[in-house]
């Protein structure tokens, strides 16, 4: 992102957001060369039927995420994200897009308290991460389900044990664990594979197991970091459907992705990052050309 771009940023109210006043950068600097990743792909014009019915109106405007002028500078001087203003109401489904190195991973690390913001205020699920105590971080993380591109399942444990592990290490009792795990394996459609190890599963099944694990604490927010990055298109759709279903049940979903097809097709809110700044925040479309 050039200086011209950042100074030319026009701050307009977000399109999706409710009562909470906030600022969202929508940036369209004229005359900048378009990045190759932004150009419309062969599937950019997906015209298929909407995959999900529109969401019902939300109740009170609770916020899953509120970021106010958040900047993260790493000790080596790298400005990973700068001046991020982002408000995500509860129940939203948000795509986070941007080229590699744009700051998506840093943003996610900030949200799950894996990194601390250098400046700015950051609230997640009602916790102010600037003042959160170390002992409170686990409680915050139980309200966030995290899904990764590489699944991060424990290879020695079965699917059931992998999901149960997340409950076990947070002090849940055995009976409670069993009920929850059974319910979630049903939700992601892995009841039949419960006793298999990750090595025996397909990529899609592994990701579904990871999603089940992310859901064990009934999180208010699910953060998925490139969840379809290692999957073929058909399986990717299955995973997206699953995340949409979870969103439909009331959980906020923030999904970082490179998958233009999915982003364009779903007409959900899209937040674009470039060189650490939010360069767009609007509904639908993977690339910058929008109607």
């Amino acid at each position: 992102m050039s200086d011209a771009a950042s100074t030319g940023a026009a701050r307009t109210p977000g399109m999706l957001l409710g009562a909470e006043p906030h600022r969202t950068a929508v940036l369209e600097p004229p005359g900048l060369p378009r990045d190759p990743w932004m150009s419309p792909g062969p599937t950019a014009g997906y015209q298929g039927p909407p995959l999900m019915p529109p969401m019902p109106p939300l109740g009170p405007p609770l916020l899953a995420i509120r970021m106010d002028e958040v900047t993260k500078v790493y000790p080596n001087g790298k400005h990973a994200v700068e001046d991020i203003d982002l408000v995500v109401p509860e129940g939203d489904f948000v795509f986070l897009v941007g080229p590699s190195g744009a700051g998506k991973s840093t943003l996610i690390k900030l949200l799950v308290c894996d990194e601390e913001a250098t400046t700015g205020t950051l609230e997640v699920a009602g916790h102010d991460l600037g003042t959160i105590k170390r002992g409170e971080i686990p409680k915050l993380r139980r309200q966030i389900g995290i899904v990764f591109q590489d699944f991060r399942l424990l290879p020695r444990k079965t699917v059931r044990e992998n999901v149960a592990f997340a409950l076990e290490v947070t002090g849940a009792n055995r009976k409670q664990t069993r009920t929850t795990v059974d319910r979630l394996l049903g939700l992601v459609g892995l009841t039949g594979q419960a006793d298999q190890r990750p090595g025996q599963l397909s990529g899609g099944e592994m990701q579904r197991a990871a999603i089940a694990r992310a859901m064990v604490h009934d999180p208010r927010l699910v953060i998925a970091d490139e969840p379809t990055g290692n999957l073929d298109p058909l399986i990717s759709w299955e995973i997206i459907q699953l995340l949409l279903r979870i969103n439909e049940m009331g959980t906020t979903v923030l999904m970082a992705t490179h998958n233009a097809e999915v982003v364009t097709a779903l007409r959900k809110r899209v937040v674009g990052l470039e060189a650490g700044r939010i360069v767009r925040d609007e509904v639908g479309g993977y690339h910058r050309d929008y109607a």
Partner: protein
Amino acid sequence: MLHLVTFSVRQALEGLWRNRVMSLAATVTMVMMLLLLSSLVIVLSGMQAGLAFVESKVEVRVELAEGVAQDRVDSLTAQLRSLPEVSDVIYVSKEQALADFTQQRIADGQPDLTDYIRNPFPNQLSVKLRDPRVSDQVMSVLDAERGPVVANVVEKQKDIDKLVSVTATLRTVGVAVLALVGLTVLLIVVNSIRMAVMSRSQEIEIMRLVGASDHFVRWPFIVEGLLVGLLGAAVTLTLLLLASGPISEVAKVIAGQVPVGFSQSLTFQVTSMVLIAGLGLGGVGAWISVRAYLRNAT
């Protein structure tokens, strides 16, 4: 709480088994260190018993001149008694001294020859000291009376000083060696637990991401360290139990009439020290290791 305990123990046992070569190495060095510790305690306690025994026997023996008036002897006795470093002064007549000598020879199984000799013993004062190594005042009083009243002073302090210095040296060297071995054990435990932590880094990362509290991350490893310590202590105590009989026999032969061996208090002392040292080193080593890791990984 109970859940944390069962979880930690289960994970720790799994970790010990998964890393069994390193666990074995840690346990074996732990056993060696604990054996060294207990032998040092046993030997030192033996020397201490010997020292106490010898010290209890030590006195300043004052040989009185022939034909000294009783009142001069009484006044010397009173004067010595009034010194703070003296615990008691006992008058031993020459007949009593000969009788004591005869009795000791008989006790040692040697022929009683006293019938053939004239009693060689003078009348004596036996001065018992509070601290066998402090006798300056006694000596100065006796020096003042030398000649008319005091014929000779027999001191046994030199022997004690030797024994005391041997004991002190042994204790210093022993503690130094023990400290070095203890440090080695600590480092091995730290390393062993670090390997356990590394081999489970994926699990730890997932635990942290799903919101496990630090206790659930930390305690399995600390329990693993404690188990290495406990195992080491158990093996050490078993070896000592097997060896205690022969050791006592040897000690009796060497020490003679000095009362050494596995008294109840020594057994208790050694057992508790081995347990505390084992569990302490295991727990502290693990704690250091996990703490260093978690601080880097927050």
